[in-house]
Every structure is written in C-alpha cells, then in structure tokens.
C-alpha cells in the first residue's frame, strides 16, 4: 500500500535522503521517498496507516526531535 505523509522540519535535502534510507530499513517498509521541497514522504508498506505512522514517527524523532509528521 502507498501512504503519504507530510514531513516538516527537515534541515536539508541531504538529511532528507538519510532519513528516507533509515525508514526504508525498518521492518514492514518496502520503500520510502522524501521530497525535501514539497515536504512530502511517500512510503510503500505492508502495514496499515496507523501502524506505519507510529513506526515512522519513532524513527523521525530519533533522527531529529524537531520533526513533525502529519497524516
């Protein structure tokens, strides 16, 4: 399933790419793309939206606790 989130507060496109590759490594996530300019994240996952959100939020906050993730 394809899920989109808004991801707000990333510093630079380089960080965006790093975060995306970290999310991609998590279990249940097939792919993760972050567009720094549109502040949008697209994830392919076998999880449902709620579970994916919780999982990704955890990774984001560990990466940088100023990040905001919106459904």
């Amino acid at each position, binding site marked *: 399933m394809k899920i989109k989130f808004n991801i707000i507060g990333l510093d630079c*496109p380089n960080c965006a*790419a790093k975060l995306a590759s970290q999310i991609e490594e998590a279990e249940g996530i097939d792919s993760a*793309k972050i567009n*720094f*300019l549109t502040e949008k994240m697209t994830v392919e996952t076998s999880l449902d939206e709620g579970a994916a959100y919780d999982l990704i939020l955890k990774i984001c906050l560990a990466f940088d606790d100023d990040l905001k993730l919106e459904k």
Partner: protein
Amino acid sequence: MRKKLKKILKSDGIKIGLSLLLFAGGLIFGFVRFEALSLVLYAFALVIAGADVFVDAVKGILRLDPLDEKFLMSVAAIGAMIVGEWSEGCAVMIFYLVGETFEHRAVRKSRASIKALMDICPDEASVLIDGKEEIIDAEDVEIGMTVVIRPGERVAVDCTVTEGTAHVDTSSMTGEPIPVTVGAGDSLSSGFVVTDGQLFATAVRKSTESAAARVLELVTVASDNKSREESFITRFSRYYTPIVVALALVVAVVPPLFGLSTLSKSVYTALTFLVISCPCALVISVPLSFFGGIGGAASRGILFKGGNVFSKIASAETVAFDKTGTITSGRFEIQDIIPAGIGTDELLFIAASVESVSNHPVAVCIKKGAQNITAPKEAKELSGLGVTAEVEGQKCAVGNLALMRSQGATVPDEYIKENGVYVCRSREFIGTITISDSVKPEAGEAIKKLYRLGVKNTVILSGDREENVSRIAKETGIIKYYSQLSPEEKYEKLEALISESKSTLYVGDGINDAPSLARADVGIAMGNMGQDSAIEASDAVIMTDNLLKISEAMLIARKTVRIARENIVFAIGIKAFILLLGFFGLANMWLAVFADVGVAVLAVLNAMRALKFTEKYK
C-alpha cells in the same frame, strides 16, 4: 519565566546577536592582550551559537554517521579552538548559524511562493441543501449537488452552470489572462475564479477528481521525477563529502610527517577542508531550480511532468504536429453555401434536415448553421459517403461526389469545391456547402517563434486529404507534411523523424494519438485537461489550446536548465577554488564557511529566478 527565556534563547536571531556580541568582546579583549577573558567570551559565544549543532553532532555519532554536516562543523570549530585559533573556531559556528538561518529562510520563502501559485483548490464550497445555502468542506461536495459561486470565489469542484452569467478568470489554471464569459450550460473547472456575477452550478466531479486537484497532484509528483542534472548532483555529493574528508586527514597528517609544516598549521587547513566538505549547498540548489521551473510553468498553464522533461524540450530540433484540434481549432464551420437553382435557406434547410440523423462532425456543423430543420424519414447513414433521407416527401442525399454519382445526380465542374459537401434532391443536384476546419489564428506566429528558438524542422502528420494538409502547411509556415496517414503510419513517420533528430517534440490533442505522444522524446498534449489517456501518455500538458504555449514551454525549460547548470558550476567551482586555496594555506575558516552556506544561499536565490518567466528571444 524560565521557559520563556529558553524560548528566546532558542530563536536564531537572538542567538546570532548574542554570540556576535560576545565574539566582538572576545576580539577586543584579545586585541588588548587580556587573553583569559577573551577566551571565556569566545567559549560562551561558541556554546550559544553552537549548542544545537553540538547536540545534533552527538546524535550523528550515535547514528554511526560521522559525515553528518553538524558533526563536521563541530569538529572544525572545536578543533580550531584546540589549535589555538580561538576567534576562527568561534566564527565558524556563528557564521554557520547565520548562513543556515538565511538558507532556511530562502527555502521557506521559495516554498511559500510556489505554494501560493498552487493555491488553486479551495477548502470549502457553498452548496444548496434543501433549498438552503450551506458552507461545507469541498471534499464533501457530492456529484449532482448544486454549488453557489459568488464574485471573488474560486470554483471548488468541476461543475456545469445551471443559472446565472459571470466573467470567470481562468488564469491560474490556463495561464490565459483574458476572462471568459460563462452562462447556463457552460462547464467550469475547479480553480477558476468568478470575478463578477453569481453562478449556480451542478457538481460533475468530486473535488479530489476535479481539474485543480489533478493539476496539483501532477505538479507535486513532477518534482519526484529527477532530471539528469539532479541525478548528477546527488551522485556527486555522495562521493564528494567522503573524498574531501579523506583529503582533510591526509592534509593534517602528511605534511608534518615530512617536516613540511607544523602540526597545528596543517590541522587548521584540514579543518577548513571539513567545513567545505558539507554537500548541502550542492544538493539543494539544483532540485530547487527545477521545482521553481515546474511551479512557474504551472502558473502559466504548462504542466511539466518531471524535471527530466526540461532538457529534452529545451533542445528540441523537430516539432511534429497533429492537425485537427492542434493546428486547426477542430471545430468545423460552414465556409460557403453555393445553391444551384434554389434559395440558400432552402438548400441549408434540406441539408441540415438530412444530416440531423448523423453525429459526424461535418453533419453537426451543418445542423448548427441552419435556422430550422424538419425530421427526415427513412434516413440512412452510408459510411464514407454521406446520408440519404426523405425530406418533405422527396428523396434527398447529402455527402461526397461518389454519393451524388450513386444517386444519379451530376455535379457541374464549377460546383466541385475543396472540402465540399454536395446536396441532391430527387436525383437533381441542388448545391454545394463548403466546410472548413479553421487554422488557429496564432498558428503562424507560433511556428515562427519555434524557428527563432532554433527548431530546424516542423512537420504535420495528418490523416486528412493532401490538398487540405498542404494548404495548412503553407498557411502556417510548416516545412513538411504527410497526409492521408493511418494511425499506424503516423506512428511510423514519427519514429523516422525521431531517429533523424536530436530531440523531437510531438504536439497533439490526445485524441487517437496517445501512442505518438508516448513515443516522442517529448509528447505535449494540449487543450485537453480532462483526458486521462492524453495526460498519462504525454510528458507535458498545455492546459489551453493556444499554440504559442509551445515556444513558451521551450523558453521556460531553457531558462530552468540554464539556472540549474549555473548552480552546479557555481557551487562546485567555488568549493573547488577554496579547497585549492586551503591546500596552499591561503584559505581561512571564514572563506570555508562562505563556501558552504554562502554558496547555498546564493544558489537558492538564483534558483528562484526559475519561477519567473519573461518572454525573450535571442
């Protein structure tokens, strides 16, 4: 109180001000050789400016990511302090903070200006529920509901006007500045703005499937499709940072080993390398250029489906066109009525009555041109010939010369015309009606502009008869034409054109030519924002049917590509130059910080030029 203080200390402005003040104090006391105090002031300045950076750096280490920008900056600042360059170590952090603040502001501003362009989907709509007007979320408007649109309001869903007339500003969707007048029966796309008058309309699509939402989706997804320039810079930066960091290590260790330099001097040089090694200036400027180009083009009614389309449009050498609906308006009109032995009105009356049973575009246009018609009897549509029917008890036929012959009517030579439709009654020829599919008024100018942009070859690919196609080619200044092509032949001709030239554009209206749109280097679908197949198959979509938009698209693409390349050369060039200076011990931390954040800010500002379009031909 404490929380408030903390918040104030967290604001970048305050941090910069305070740390600059402390830094100045440090400089002054250092100058009068009161070094202990000077060092304390520097240390405070460093902590205030760099606290967040240090915290992030530690996080970077915990993530096992030693090439993190924050980490590199921290090492550079603290390292400079250790080798005795206190003021420089402190300055690195302060100016990194200043640069970052500017960079974030520039990115935020460019995001906002692009978002403003994209603010075409209203959140709410007024609808009539049981005769009463209510404001509901645009997403909750169901098909068939009556929406009310007042002056100044934006249309929330695609709909058909049922009542009222008004002027409508379509510019944010089509890029056309001239308002359109609409009344009952006309369709409205979401994103249009009603400038005067009140309209009642029936929703025909949900807001999420309406034009504005689809345009927005297309444009948002477009920045995911990377251009060659973007892929290059991403690949480049992946190697750039590790290589420069490795160089820094070499520079720090090797010269002192051979007695070429003191350890502290060479460590200082290495630290400047670390500052320069941050890749962000590179990585941000190029995508932002394309982002700007996509946004700027969208505001003019041109949708690029990805950054990868720009360079191909920019270098187009051959432009191939579909004819009907692309070069011509696709709306047939009666050009001339030439009766033989009867009145004009009577001829038209008979022709329209017979044709009233057919949906052929020619039949529809004859019907439209007639004042009154009657229902015919025993009407028969003969494909490829025309229609026969009984009108007022007499057997009539409307169609081509072959039909006339089969009806036993002879058409005198002076009545045989280009694009003629012939009419006979009771085996007697009674007149010719000529039909034209008019060339769009701007076609000639549009083609001329393409030549001025360096397009070498223009071609019409058409299924129509040779005499029509050659006339249109001559009229518009198009160099080559191929007529009477079947859809397969059209595709083959296009393939031949593609193999002959560097980049080939194909411009079509998306009806029956989706394969060609998909095959060309760049397929441009025009005037058909509703057609899914056309949007899918094409690389760029032009929202209006205005041919001048093709040269405009080329100009926007060229400008965007040029800006992206400028940014690549500029960012890499400055970094390489300062690395070189650093290598010979000529660069200090200040220059290194400029090479990082200063370049980023300038590149972002340059990228924003892609948003604006001015028509300029060399």
